[in-house]
């Protein structure tokens, strides 16, 4: 029952259209410039809101490799966000080392160890069963975090002290100066670097084989695509990205807590991806930004922000399956064809 997401016009643009390439580059440069200048322009608070945005952007780039490009919907991906945060916190607690680079390595290492067996197992399934299996693993880890108090600090979680960046300790800066300053730029570079890597992966032969396994697994097998292998690799890569996102979230909160792995957070990850549009490479990143700003704005206006988020998601799913970026794409398409005729 290969239920790849194909019935909708999947407009993952083919990498070759050069004319389109230039447009893409402009968007990229404006993205970099805007975010590089933001700390000077926007108030501290909204900058500290952008840190979770960077974390989710990285997590969703990984998640969409699995969902948009691989056609596999995981409902337990928040598991790896928690793995990242806890790996960093455990490193700091047990070894006293607080270098951010080491935390990232610990997170990636832990994610690799945990994701590989799950990937080998989960790559046998698609559709509902893949979703249920990942949900079950997510909740297993959540329960483990809550239950094994002496290892994981139980419900209270583990503290995550402020890390040093490239060995530099920003002792003097207060919390906002640190987050809105050096940490902000470090994360921006991380997002751009990991984004570039993911762009290369998605446009590589491996990426093409993954998309082929999404659209038609039997035909792909006959053209030499190792379907289970490409899916397993996609799962592991998405787990690594999730863990890196988890470390950033952990540092932003100053704590790694079990709530990170709760299945509803996995649901929010899917929400952001569909909100931004999973057909586009940049879609999920847009979705993360819009979700964070929407949630923040709604929660100032009313206590019932979940209701409005739910309504937005319902409208999205029914009326705008392509998400925001899908909407842009069809708008541009309409303009271009109207112009051309």
């Amino acid at each position, binding site marked *: 029952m290969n239920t790849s997401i*194909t019935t909708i*016009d*999947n407009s*993952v643009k*083919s*990498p*070759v*259209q050069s004319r389109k390439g230039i447009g893409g580059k402009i968007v990229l440069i404006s993205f970099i410039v805007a975010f590089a200048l933001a700390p000077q322009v926007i108030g501290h608070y909204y900058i500290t809101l952008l840190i979770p945005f960077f974390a989710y952007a990285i997590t969703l780039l990984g998640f969409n490799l699995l969902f948009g490009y691989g056609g596999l919907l995981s409902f337990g991906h928040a598991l790896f966000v928690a793995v990242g945060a806890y790996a960093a916190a455990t490193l700091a607690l047990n070894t006293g080392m607080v270098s951010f680079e080491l935390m990232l390595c610990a997170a990636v290492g832990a994610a690799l160890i945990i994701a590989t067996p799950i990937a080998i197992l989960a790559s046998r399934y698609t559709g509902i069963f893949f979703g249920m299996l990942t949900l079950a693993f997510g909740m297993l880890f959540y329960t483990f975090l809550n239950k094994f108090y002496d290892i994981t600090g139980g419900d209270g979680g583990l503290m995550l002290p402020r890390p040093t960046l490239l060995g530099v300790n920003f002792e003097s800066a207060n919390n906002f100066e640190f987050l809105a300053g050096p940490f902000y730029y470090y994360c921006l570079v991380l997002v751009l670097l990991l984004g570039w890597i993911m762009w*290369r*992966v998605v*446009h*590589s*032969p*491996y*990426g*093409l*084989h993954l*998309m*082929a396994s*999404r*659209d*038609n697994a*039997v*035909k*792909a*097998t*006959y*053209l*030499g*695509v*190792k*379907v289970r292998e490409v899916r397993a*690799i996609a799962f592991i890569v998405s787990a690594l990205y999730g863990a890196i996102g988890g470390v950033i979230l952990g540092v932003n909160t100053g704590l790694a807590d079990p709530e990170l792995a709760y299945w509803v957070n996995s649901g929010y990850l899917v929400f952001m991806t569909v909100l931004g549009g999973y057909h586009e490479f940049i879609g999920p990143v847009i979705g993360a930004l819009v979700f964070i700003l929407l949630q923040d704005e709604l929660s100032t206006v009313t206590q019932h922000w979940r209701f409005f988020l739910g309504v937005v998601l319902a409208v999205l799913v029914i009326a705008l399956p392509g998400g925001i970026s899908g909407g842009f794409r069809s708008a541009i398409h309409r303009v271009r064809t109207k112009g051309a005729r």
Partner: protein
Amino acid sequence: MQREKMLLRAVNISRHYGDFRALEHVDLSLSTGEFVSVVGPNGAGKSTLVNVLTGLHQPTTGRVYFRGDDIAGVGAVELATCGLARAFQLANVFLDLTVRQTIAVSASSYLKLRRSAFVNLMGHGEVDGIVRRVAQAFELTPWLDVKARALPHGRRKLLDVASAFALHPKVILLDEPTAGVSTADKHGVMETLLSASKTLGVEAIVLVEHDMDLVSRYSTRIIAMQAGKKIADLPRDEFFQNEEVVSIVIGKGAANVSCA
């Protein structure tokens, strides 16, 4: 039969689904330069034979050798990169990938790029070369950047076959490649297939076909199947002179088919 280069040999293969005997003790051999057609009524076991030969299904008994190695049940993904490819009866393509991308899937398997996750696919000279050459051979060049979803049925069928050819196979198994194509340009399609197999170095072709006109025109040898058994395995001219076999395959009182 000369034995200068035995490519594909099936020895006593049968395939049972419970007590249904889809294939019953079939032997088959294929050498360089041959164009073997497999004919017979529906349910004769033609498609099952192709599935077993291409490693999709494990034969219940018997052995399949490809260029000397036992490939029974090895799996299609291995065979694809060591010279045995197939196309499907129903056009089997990637709806959301363009013609270029579909051919590039086979090209990257052929060039052993399967695991390279960092190389920019479309900027890769060799891949681009194969894509251009195969598209050219199958007259798909104008549609290179069109998604398979937007192609008419006949074009999709060609893409299905083209993507198999792009693996540069030694042997290719085609399952009614001209199905759904108007009778007028069926021969056009066959000509394209033959010229493409020359340019891409295909050494032998197995064709599962109903249209006896095509079979008589292009085959070097014809195998007739009935109820899972091989009832004939003759060079083309001998096949059409053998009344008894022809009557089973084409049915009683068929017009006498003149062989070109």
